[in-house]
């Protein structure tokens, strides 16, 4: 997304507040879709920026305090001091503190810390409707007088009061300093007492307690958890299938169109096979990723996810992971990249690192085409066993992630874990608008990645798979001559297709990638892979699902045919160079399946790991560990299958 231009004399404002106070919803209300997302320079904390009515607004991470060693607090301190390296923003002209009206004394502590910085302040007193439901009424005028700044009552979810914030920010002045001899906590209590009155009985907390009795119950809570997760995955896989089909068809049509209007040659090949085919293969997963983010945001806004994290904490603890790892690992089932980014919410550095390193073990959507292909070969006529094997892939991935974490947390990531202390916000109706805006933001981020990193990788793969170009073998010329003499147009077309596939296979075998496949074959031979499968594995480094289309080309089976029984049979019976041994023998298929569950075959994920950890060293650790484990697992699976004659 293009960055937003800052007007010459824009008022520079930062938005700050405790977590779960509706700050992001308020920012979404103010910004609409005009959000520019980046990282605070030198950090992994996301910075959302927008320009509204001549005000440059930066959304800071949610924090309970400006003190402490958490990265969010450090980012807020630096931003408020105008010391964010590389940022042109400088010290802000004003600070908008979002305050939860249902939880005033604790929120005012952060306000006190901000006032002590001497910056102009405006308070957005959010959730005033919820406070009334809790039997609390806050006198905003009295609060404003006590604080020495303007207080705007808001309900971010409906937009009430939000339009008054910009005007208040323009009028903002630095409040009077806090009394030197009074601790911030005591000051916050005193100010809260002075402006809050009870108005009738509260029903909110009791209702939340009743729901919590079920949601956080060891058995009932686990049942609810399983039901919610099953529903989540069902929706993601079922609903996303339609738009995925549309995207796939659109890219096929685009490829056909370009093939039709451009003359054959390197440029057409680059466009059709490299760019349209490659980027299309990745973009097809956009609906699943967006849907997963949308549903996770709804769950988070409803207040369920912190409870789920609390429930899972007990399960994760023996493996050295905190409950907060749950959301990143869940998200990684859509794609490891957003999953790794979601690790920013884990406060402890070692626990965050452990989660980042194991997240790619979770079976992402890109693995599904490979699982489907191999399981179809292994259990062609046994759907029940195929379903068990498919679920087993997910279990193996999750098991490897937890075991790996336990090993890492007891070796080089050993350390005292941060205590699991979580605020459990009240249950709220999710805000669809806010969730939609966040999903659009994430979706655009994925599109940016597809348009840059993945596009670049696809071009490189296309080049290595296309060059050096070689003359087709004599058999191809003979087949084309046979097609010319064929009795019917259908027969001629069939022979031409055979000739095209054979030519593509020959070209791939003699390309740089083919040469690399032959060079690397000795490494993979113990796993039962020949040079053709080695090419498939090499091409998977761009994206795992590329394995299927690569094998279709290498084994001269049209990709479209893979979806038909005859195409699958043809692939299953394809032979190696000796003309006898099958490429996909049962033992090799088992070996490949285990390898694809465990291997790190995704360069964009490695790049994101490096960015999020601040070092390529961790990407190296992740790659080396997963590769060694995948190799060992595949070796065991191959020999076990040979011994037991599976």
């Amino acid at each position, binding site marked *: 997304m293009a960055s937003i231009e800052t007007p010459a004399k824009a008022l520079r404002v930062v938005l700050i507040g405790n977590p779960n106070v509706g700050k992001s919803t308020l920012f979404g209300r103010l910004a609409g879709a005009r959000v520019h997302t980046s990282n605070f320079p030198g950090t992994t904390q996301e910075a959302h920026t927008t320009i509204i009515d001549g005000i440059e607004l930066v959304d800071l991470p949610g924090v309970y305090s400006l003190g402490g060693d958490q990265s969010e607090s450090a980012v807020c301190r630096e931003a408020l001091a105008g010391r964010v390296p590389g940022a042109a923003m400088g010290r802000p002209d004003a600070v908008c503190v979002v305050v939860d009206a249902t939880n*005033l*004394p604790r929120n005012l502590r952060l306000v006190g810390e901000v006032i002590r910085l001497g910056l102009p302040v405006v308070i957005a007193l959010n959730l005033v409707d919820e406070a009334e439901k809790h039997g*609390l009424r806050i006198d905003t005028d009295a609060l404003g007088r006590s604080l020495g700044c303007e207080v705007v009552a808001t309900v971010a979810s409906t937009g009430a009061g939000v339009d008054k914030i910009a005007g208040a920010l323009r009028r903002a002045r630095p409040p009077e300093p806090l009394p030197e001899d009074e601790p911030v906590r005591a000051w916050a209590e005193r100010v809260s007492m002075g402006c809050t009155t009870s108005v009738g009985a509260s029903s909110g907390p009791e209702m939340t*307690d009743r729901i919590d009795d079920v949601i*956080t119950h060891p058995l009932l809570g686990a049942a609810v958890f399983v039901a919610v997760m099953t529903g989540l995955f069902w929706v993601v896989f079922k609903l996303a299938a339609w738009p995925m089909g549309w995207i796939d068809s659109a890219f096929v049509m685009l490829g056909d169109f370009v093939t039709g209007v451009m003359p054959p040659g390197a440029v057409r090949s680059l466009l059709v096979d490299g760019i349209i085919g490659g980027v299309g293969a990745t973009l097809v997963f956009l609906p699943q990723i967006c849907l997963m983010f949308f549903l996770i945001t709804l769950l988070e806004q409803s207040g369920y996810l912190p409870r789920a994290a609390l429930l899972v904490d007990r399960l994760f603890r023996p493996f*050295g992971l905190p409950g907060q790892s749950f959301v990143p690992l869940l998200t990684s089932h859509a794609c490891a990249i957003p999953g790794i980014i979601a690790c920013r919410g884990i406060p402890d550095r070692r626990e965050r690192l452990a989660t980042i390193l194991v997240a790619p073990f979770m079976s992402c959507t890109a693995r599904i085409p490979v699982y489907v292909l191999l399981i179809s070969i292994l259990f062609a006529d046994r759907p029940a066993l195929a379903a068990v094997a498919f679920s087993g892939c997910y279990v193996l991935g999750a098991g490897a992630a937890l075991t790996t974490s336990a090993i890492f947390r007891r070796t080089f990531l050993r350390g005292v*874990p*941060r*205590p699991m*202390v979580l605020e459990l916000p009240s249950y709220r109706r999710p805000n669809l608008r806010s969730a939609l805006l966040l999903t659009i933001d994430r979706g655009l981020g994925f599109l940016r990645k597809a348009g840059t990193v993945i596009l670049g990788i696809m071009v490189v793969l296309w080049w290595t798979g296309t060059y050096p170009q070689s003359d087709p073998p004599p058999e191809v010329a003979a087949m084309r001559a046979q097609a010319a003499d064929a009795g019917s147009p259908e027969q001629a077309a069939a022979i031409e297709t055979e000739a095209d596939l054979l030519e593509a296979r020959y070209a791939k075998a003699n390309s740089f990638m083919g040469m690399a496949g032959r060079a690397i074959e000795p490494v993979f031979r113990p796993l039962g892979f020949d040079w053709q499968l080695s090419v498939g594995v090499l091409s998977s480094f761009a994206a795992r699902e590329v394995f299927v289309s690569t094998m279709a080309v290498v084994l001269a089976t049209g990709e479209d045919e893979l979806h038909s029984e005859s195409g699958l049979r043809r692939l299953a019976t394809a032979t190696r160079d000796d003309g006898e041994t099958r490429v996909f023998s049962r033992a090799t298929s088992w070996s490949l399946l285990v390898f694809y569950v465990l291997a790190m075959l995704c360069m964009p994920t490695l790049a994101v790991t490096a960015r999020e950890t601040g070092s390529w060293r961790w990407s190296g650790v992740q790659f080396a560990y997963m590769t060694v484990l995948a190799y060992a697992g595949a070796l065991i699976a191959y020999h076990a299958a040979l011994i037991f004659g599976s």
Partner: protein
Amino acid sequence: MTAIETTCEPACEAVPLTQLGKGQRGRVQCCSLDGCCGELIDSLGLGEDTLISICRRGDPCIVRVHHRCGGSCRIGLRREIGRRIMVRPMEA
């Protein structure tokens, strides 16, 4: 695996937070955990002299923090942390 120091000296009547029954109230007497734990607990509102009640016992447990001016918030925490937060139980 966790090493959290308790340095406060609780009064005779103070008990660990985990010993309170469901719905029982108490006032936090001390929660001298080590640096980052202490800061986190305090910034979440579980500081000294805070009125709390137990919403769920067990591991993890859920504690409600009651504000003097009205209103409250809920905190979920591991039992090992709760054991190090000393509270003076209050009559029901």
